[in-house]
Structure formats: structure tokens, C-alpha cells
């Protein structure tokens, strides 16, 4: 049997184990270990690679921001800053179809300008947005799906880790990548908003627990409006927090990586100022932070080990042969490429996909006359879809973990993010066919 065949069998093994309900981290680590052992016919090597991955696979400053963003989200939630903000949003967007869904997308768009990692957006907004949307009559799973779906904006609107990684691998201007991400990012945000509104019209049962009551609430005329003064005082803490983080970031006080630490600290100060934290409650929030973070980080570790097994199996080289083999037109090549990335996105984490694909594909794209910045945006869009697709969809896992609500299962969140995946696919096709969507601002 060829090494590649073993690799494909182990992909099937992984998918079956995950579907059977095995803890995903164990499935990835176990299948990865087995694969390296069999392919290189060397048990000792499998041991060493596992050790190496465990010791340094996720030893990265960037991953250290995950617990900090989780902490920030929990603090914003526990100090009721999130609730106040969403009350104002509900008031302002009461007549808008799916108002709080739109508010969540808008909030994610703003936060996307702070963080470079989608997981951070997912972690921050789960505890803030989902309970509030639920309180206002939205289905919990739909709310969770909205948070997971809109979290992908974090990677397309600068700053963005994936754009940086791509820029380095393909040797194009990182600043250029950032600018190129803006229009597709806005297209995505607007697409999400349009999709949410359309969905509310067409399938209100997908959105609300009680669609009739929601419609009634929306059309109600004689609700006493929230006084402006109350509105402003409710918004003040979030404005201060956003100003602190965005302002500090864009005036050069700290880096996007450091924004996690500073943001969590800012949220802590706001919570203390609002007297919503005693020592017991703070400890409780901290413990939750740890519990949520470990599941996410363990998954990242396991995924990076599994991707190393696929590399040992020769998958990158096989893909390179496939894309080189064929006399593709530029558009044909782009679509084959996007499909391969979408398939890889089902089982791998974003950075691993970029590491495998960009060095193979960028030279070919260039030889076909495709602009590498345009190509990068297509790459990142396709990779981002993988954050939302089963069986390995890290944004969905993050939301489900952070929510920790037994009534909201992983597959429900996956189902609720499906409309977001469709919007992303549509934007991907548009950007692929109309290069100026990426390059117009350059």
C-alpha cells in the first residue's frame, strides 16, 4: 500500500471516529500517531513527533491570546456591559428584521479591526451575544451559529493572522494584503446581514423560538422608547473599552497580539468600576476561562499533529502533482484550488492548510498570471470557510465550548452556521471572478 493510501484511510478513520462521538482531540492524536507509525514503519519516530508537537506545536504567543480573549468576553458578560449594549441595540434595531443578529455581525465587524484571529471573536461574543439574543426570543442555536459565522470576519478585516502568514509564504506585501481584505470583508459583512434578514422573512422558525411573538414585537408601535440619557449611559462602558483597545492598537501602543492582554485588563477594570466583581466571582470567571481555553488549545495541538502525519504521508506532494498535472485555465485552477482548500478545511486548522498549500500553489498561480494578492484573498476566504465546516470547525467548537449549554449541541451550531458558509461561498466565487474586488484599493 502506498503511503498516500494509508493517509486517505486515516482520514476516513478520523471522520468515522469523530462521527461516532469520540473526543475530537483523541481522534486526531490517535489517528495521527497510528499514521506516522505505519507510514514510516517506525514506532519510535511516532513517539518523538508526538512529543515534539505537544511541546512546541502550540507554543506560540499568538495562541496565548486565546485565553485572554476568552477572559475578556467573560468579563464583558459578567459585568453586564454586553447586556446593556445589546439592550440599546435591541432598542435601536427593534424594527429591523433580525435586529440583534445584525447587531452581532456589526459588533464582530468592529471587533475584527482589533483581533487577528477568528477564534478570539468567537470567544468574546459567545457569552456576550448569545444569552442576550436568547433573552430576546432568538433560538439559542441560531444565536450561537450567528456568533460562529460572523467570527470569520476577524481574519479578513485587518489585522489578520492568516493574511500575514499568506503574505510571508507568498512573499507579497502584508500591507497590501490588509488593504485587499477590506472590500471582501465588507462584502462578507453585508452578505451576512442580507442573509440574516432574508432568513427571518423566509424561515422565521429557524431564527426565533416563537416567530409569531417576534413579529408582533417588531411591529408593536406603543413601546415606551428608551430615554437617550439611559441609552448613552448604557453604552458608555463599551465605548470606553472599544476606544481603549482600538485606539491603543492603531496609535501604536500595542500589537494585535498584545490586544488580548490589554483588552482583558480593560474589561477587568470596567467590571471592577461597575462593582460587578467580588473576589469569588472573579475567581469563578478565571476558572471558566481556563476550562474553555484548554478544550480549544488542545484541539489546535491535536490538529497540528494530524496535519504533520498527512505531510509524512506525502499529501502536500500529491496535491502539488495534481495541480501541476493539468493544463488548467486560471479560473479552472482557482476553482480546483479552492475545492482542495475546502476539503482540507474540513479536517485541518487554518495555519496548517496555508503551510501546505501556499508554497505549492502560489508559484503556479503566478505563472498563470493571477495576481498574488488577489490569490491570497481567495486563499484566506476558502480557508476561513473551514472554520465553520464539520467535522473539524474550530470556530463552531469555540462557540459551543464557551457557551457550555447542554441544550445547544455541536451539530446544531454547525447547522446554524450553514447559511453563513453559503454566503462565504458566494463571496468567494464573486471575488474569484472579479479580481478588482480585492485589488481595487491597492
Amino acid at each position, binding site marked *: 500500500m502506498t503511503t498516500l493510501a494509508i493517509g486517505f484511510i486515516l482520514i476516513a478513520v478520523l471522520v468515522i471516529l469523530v462521527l461516532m462521538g469520540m473526543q*475530537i482531540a483523541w481522534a486526531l492524536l490517535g489517528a495521527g500517531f497510528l499514521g506516522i507509525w505505519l507510514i514510516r514503519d517506525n514506532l519510535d519516530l511516532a513517539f*518523538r513527533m508526538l512529543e515534539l508537537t505537544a511541546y512546541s506545536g502550540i507554543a506560540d504567543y499568538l495562541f496565548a491570546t*486565546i485565553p485572554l480573549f476568552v477572559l475578556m468576553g467573560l468579563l464583558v458578560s459578567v459585568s453586564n456591559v454586553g447586556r446593556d449594549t445589546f439592550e440599546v441595540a435591541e432598542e435601536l434595531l427593534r424594527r429591523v428584521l433580525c435586529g440583534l443578529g445584525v447587531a452581532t455581525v456589526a459588533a464582530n465587524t468592529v471587533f475584527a479591526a482589533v483581533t487577528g484571529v477568528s477564534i478570539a471573536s468567537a470567544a468574546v461574543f459567545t457569552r456576550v451575544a448569545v444569552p442576550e439574543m436568547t433573552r430576546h426570543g432568538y433560538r439559542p442555536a441560531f444565536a450561537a451559529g450567528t456568533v460562529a459565522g460572523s467570527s470569520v470576519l476577524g481574519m479578513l478585516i485587518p489585522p489578520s493572522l492568516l493574511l500575514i502568514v499568506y503574505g510571508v509564504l507568498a512573499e507579497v506585501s502584508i500591507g497590501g494584503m490588509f488593504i485587499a481584505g477590506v472590500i471582501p470583508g465588507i462584502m462578507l459583512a453585508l452578505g451576512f446581514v442580507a442573509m440574516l434578514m432574508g432568513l427571518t422573512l423566509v424561515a422565521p422558525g429557524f431564527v426565533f423560538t416563537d416567530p409569531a411573538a417576534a413579529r408582533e414585537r417588531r411591529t408593536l408601535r406603543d413601546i415606551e422608547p428608551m430615554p437617550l440619557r439611559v441609552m448613552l449611559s448604557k453604552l458608555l462602558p463599551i465605548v470606553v473599552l472599544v476606544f481603549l483597545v482600538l485606539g491603543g492598537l492603531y496609535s501604536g501602543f500595542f500589537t494585535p497580539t498584545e490586544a488580548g492582554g490589554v483588552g482583558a485588563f480593560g474589561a477587568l477594570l470596567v467590571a471592577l468600576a461597575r462593582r460587578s466583581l467580588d473576589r469569588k466571582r472573579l475567581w469563578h470567571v478565571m476558572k471558566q476561562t481556563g476550562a474553555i481555553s484548554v*478544550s480549544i488549545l488542545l484541539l489546535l495541538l491535536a490538529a497540528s499533529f494530524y496535519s504533520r502525519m498527512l505531510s509524512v504521508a506525502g499529501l502536500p506532494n500529491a496535491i502539488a502533482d495534481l495541480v501541476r498535472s493539468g493544463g488548467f485555465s486560471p479560473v479552472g485552477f482557482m476553482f480546483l484550488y479552492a475545492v482542495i482548500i475546502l476539503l482540507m478545511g474540513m479536517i485541518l486548522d487554518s495555519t496548517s492548510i496555508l503551510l501546505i498549500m501556499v508554497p505549492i500553489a502560489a508559484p503556479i498561480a503566478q505563472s498563470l498570471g493571477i495576481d498574488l494578492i488577489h490569490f491570497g484573498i481567495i486563499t484566506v476566504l476558502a480557508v476561513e470557510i473551514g472554520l465553520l465546516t464539520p467535522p473539524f470547525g474550530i470556530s463552531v467548537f469555540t462557540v459551543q465550548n464557551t457557551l457550555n449549554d447542554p441544550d445547544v449541541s455541536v451539530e446544531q451550531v454547525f447547522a446554524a452556521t450553514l447559511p453563513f458558509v453559503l454566503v462565504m461561498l458566494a463571496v468567494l466565487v464573486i471575488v474569484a471572478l472579479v479580481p478588482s474586488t480585492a485589488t481595487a484599493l491597492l
Partner: protein
Amino acid sequence: MADESSTIDDRGYIPRFADAPVGAVLGGVAAFLSSIGTIWIGLLMLLIVADVLGRNFFNAPITGVAEIAARSVVAIVFLQVSAAILQGRLTRADFLLRRIGRASPGAVNVLEIVFALCGATVLAVLLWASWPKTVEAWVTAEFFGVQGVFTIPTFPFRAITVVGCTVGALACLYRAGQSLRALRGAAE
């Protein structure tokens, strides 16, 4: 406050010593490790803020924050993993499992035993592979950082992996035992 239902509570997974001595000790150790991990996250936040303030206002950045933060991620994971296992918080897609459970609760217990044993095996393998490196780190006084700028020994970090794997593997075995008992209880 909203959603107290989703709180994480030590009492939820640490049984009383009189009821289940093994579970109580294991749960206690896991809770202790996870507390260290929790405090670590807080310290990491303070370290980053101190570095930002020091760099911007006192021309005195803290050297090595990036490396320390990087190493901390791994430490935090292995300090928390056993508690996460005992709490059953590791991510999984259990829709099929729930359906199987409706038809045959026994089958679910069997699967749970298999899964827990897989987890225990993975962690035991990792423990086995990490042990020599940990000893070596101690013997050679291995460090990270730069001589003369900042140096931090790697031994504590490697030791945390070893301890985390050990307790984590035991936690998996304990969960397997629980499922086995449930299986037997149902059979009787």
C-alpha cells in the same frame, strides 16, 4: 447574573472522599492543577500589560514576554487537561451517540469506555515520549532565551507536561471505570 446553569463547579466532578476515595483524590489533584493554570492566565495578562506600559512610558520593555507567553500556552493546557477530562468538557460531536443512547444505553457505555481508553493511551504515549526529554532538560539545565539577555529553565515546563499527562491518563481511566460500572449496573 445570567446563565448560572453553565458555571463550572468543582463540586460537579469531585465526589466526596467517603463515597469514592479514588475519584475524590484524583478530582482534588486535577482541581489543584487547574487552579495553578487559572492563576497563570491572570499573571500572563498582567505580564503583557506591564510590558506594554514599560515599553511605552518607561523605555523599559520586559524581555522575553513573547517566549514566556508561548511556553505558557503549553503549560496552561497540560495544567487544565485533567480537570477538563473529569468534567467531560473535551469537544466532541455526540449526536450519533445520543441516538444510540436512546436505542441502547449499554452500547453508549461501551463506546465511552473505548473512547476513554483511547484518551488514556494517547496521554500515556505522550508521557512515555516526554519523560526522557524532561530528564535531559533537568540534567543539562536546558533553558530558553538568550544568555546575557534572559534565560528561563525549560525543566518546569517539561515537568508540567509529564504531570499533566499522568493525571490526565488516570482521569481517563477513572472515566472508563465509571462507564464500566454504569454498564454493569444496567446489566444487573
